[in-house]
């Protein structure tokens, strides 16, 4: 793509229903309102534990239940909750916007628990709940496998278990966990992902093993949310510098709800340092920019950019690839009003790629 191209069609951002028909929505969130929702999917010991120990909630502060961002006001039901049923989600996303598929990424705070066995029990329950109460009820839905990161062997077991169901199309990790995701201790997860042909989806949010910044705990939720783009930067650096893509050449990683526009300048910096420091990481045998274009994809909602189509066009030019962006509404997180599911400024000639081709190329099981 050249800056000197003739003026091209830049969409104003006022999408009509017909323009979002048939899109693949790569990031939607079912809501779990309490551990009782998972009780039917827990074995006797853990089901009893919920009552005996008063384990009612695994809500994460990554998305405070009533914060504006967590759910758009008109998507909340009479209880103030969004997306807690197939009817709600399918009606508002698939029926209304005519999307052909939506991928469910459940963000209930099962990563936050410290007890490894509890982690296994709850992730299993989440995945079973998704399969029974969502995937079985609407054939347009697909889902990511939630894995117990408290113990990598258990995470691999859960991947192997759920991968048998072809409606699970991705493995879901959080942007901030116990250790950077490139670390070799995490590699059995990537081996399992490659074995099953599943991409790794890294979603905004934290297990809060560490503060959300490298400089401690900020005061405000708005800072927590803003810091997520920084978490993604460190993770991309880790995945590349540790050599994950050298070891797993078929692996695709999707960055979910990352904000997107931080990527080009981060790569400019990382690639510059790579030229001077590649003796430290000799397995990084080509520029990080090339590695990212081959292996990493990003969902477009939210797109951290002004409502200025010409600026958005410049940023997409900076990414130097048409293959990287994946359509997503991030429903029910509140990033847009009405039916403006895509940010303004996305070039019209990229629409089909973003909405269909790139997701199909990324998710083999779709």
């Amino acid at each position, binding site marked *: 793509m050249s800056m000197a191209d003739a003026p091209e069609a830049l969409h104003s951002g006022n999408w009509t229903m017909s323009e979002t028909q048939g899109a693949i929505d790569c990031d939607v969130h079912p809501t779990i309102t309490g551990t009782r929702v998972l009780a039917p999917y827990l074995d006797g010991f853990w089901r009893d534990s919920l009552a005996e120990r008063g384990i009612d909630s695994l809500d994460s502060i990554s998305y405070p239940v009533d914060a504006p*961002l967590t759910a758009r006001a008109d998507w909340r039901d009479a209880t103030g909750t969004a997306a807690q049923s197939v009817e709600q989600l399918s009606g508002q996303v698939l029926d209304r916007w005519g999307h052909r598929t939506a991928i469910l990424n459940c963000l209930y705070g099962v990563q936050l628990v410290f007890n490894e066995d509890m982690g296994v029990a709850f992730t299993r329950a989440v995945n079973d709940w998704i399969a029974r109460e969502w995937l079985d009820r609407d054939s347009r839905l697909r889902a990511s496998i939630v894995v117990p990161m408290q113990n990598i062997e258990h995470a691999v077991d859960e991947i192997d278990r759920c991968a048998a169901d072809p409606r699970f199309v991705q493995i879901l990790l959080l942007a901030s*966990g116990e250790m950077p995701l490139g670390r070799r201790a995490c590699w059995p997860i990537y081996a399992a992902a490659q074995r099953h042909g599943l991409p790794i989806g890294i979603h905004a949010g934290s297990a809060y093993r560490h503060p959300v910044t490298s400089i401690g705990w900020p005061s405000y*939720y708005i800072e927590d949310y803003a810091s997520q783009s920084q978490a993604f930067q460190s993770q991309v*650096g880790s995945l590349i510098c540790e050599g994950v893509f050298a070891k797993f050449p078929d692996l695709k990683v999707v960055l979910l709800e990352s904000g997107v526009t931080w990527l080009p300048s981060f790569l*400019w910096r990382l690639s510059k340092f790579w030229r001077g420091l590649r003796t430290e990481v000799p397995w990084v045998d080509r520029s990080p920019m090339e590695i990212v274009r081959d292996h990493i994809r990003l969902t477009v909602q939210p797109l951290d950019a002004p409502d200025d189509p010409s600026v958005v066009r410049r940023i997409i030019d900076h990414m130097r690839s048409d293959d990287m962006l994946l359509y997503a509404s991030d429903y029910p997180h509140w990033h847009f009003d009405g039916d403006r599911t895509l940010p303004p400024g996305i070039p019209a000639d990229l629409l089909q790629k973003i909405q269909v081709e790139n997701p199909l190329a990324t998710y083999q099981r779709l």
Partner: protein
Amino acid sequence: MNNVAATPSLDKTAVQATENGPVDCDIHTRVRTIADLKPYLSTQWWNYLKTYGMRARHGFAKAPPFPKAQPNAARRDAWPPDGGFPATNLEFMRAQHLDHYGIAYGIMNPLVATGQGDQNDDLSAALATATNDWQLDTFVNPEPRLRASVVVPYEDGLASAAEIRRRAGDRRFAQVLMMSRTAEPAGKRRYWPIYEAAAEAGLPVGNHVFGYSGWAGTSSGWSSFYIEEMTDHAVSCQSLVTSLIMEGVFERFPGLKIVLIESGFGWMPALGWRLDRAWERMRDEVPHLRMPPSAYLRKHFWVSTQPIEEPERPEHLLDTVDWVGPDRIMFASDYPHWDFDDPRLALPSALGLERKRAILSGNARALYNLV
């Protein structure tokens, strides 16, 4: 040692010193040994230092947690012939750097043996004031092109304010110096006495990358490699900028100016856009902000160039310069470090002469009141 002999006097492209020469916003002069600070320390603190040493918020007694790419992170040709460390010998630095590039002014940001971020706040305070005296005696007094930074024990806000007030009005100091990785985000109230004293004294606060916060290097734990640490400095700076803005530091101190040193600047536009989007949605959480976050970013922050980002298409950096504001960007060499930027080569030529002059000299002269 694989050092390279420096022969600056034979370099025929040496720039003649002019009064319009570059202003270098990041020079790392250092002590030859800790003993250089002894004249400026009490007997009590000298003995403490010899016995217990400095203890940053990490485990290494003498080494940095991530080993550098080169010894002392320095250029191989920057070791002076007297056998000392790079940037300890004024005469050599004049020849190799100040005279060679026609540097009009250089701002010193000492990093070694300053005690900044030490676990012991009182030791940190003693070393800070000693470092400030040492800067003046060793470099600024004999070399009129150099300016010092007021090193402060930033984890102790009140002691830092006292040190700033001690130096206020002394034009040999161009700014206050903090490190980017603080124990809490930079906007937190414990640091407000620093900003109050700096604003009162009319001094910008230079926030240079490094320091050891005591937390892991990323929000997801410790990375493995130096290359990650270096790249992640841009990440930490995004967090510190967010904190300064969201905590309302600039509402409380409207005259405060912050210089981000060695973090690059490519990340700034995306951060501003992200903060604005979040604020549109959740401004009720931060009612003390009266403008969008990007407006504070535009009004209160300056950035140094080095290590300047290098896109595959150099014209992409011009977009970034436009978005950040060409009046906000100031040249820095990072002499004597290995990733040093040469003032003749570092800036894309497509910037054009006017913007290049502003970045090489004009912006820093205006910010630091250099005449």
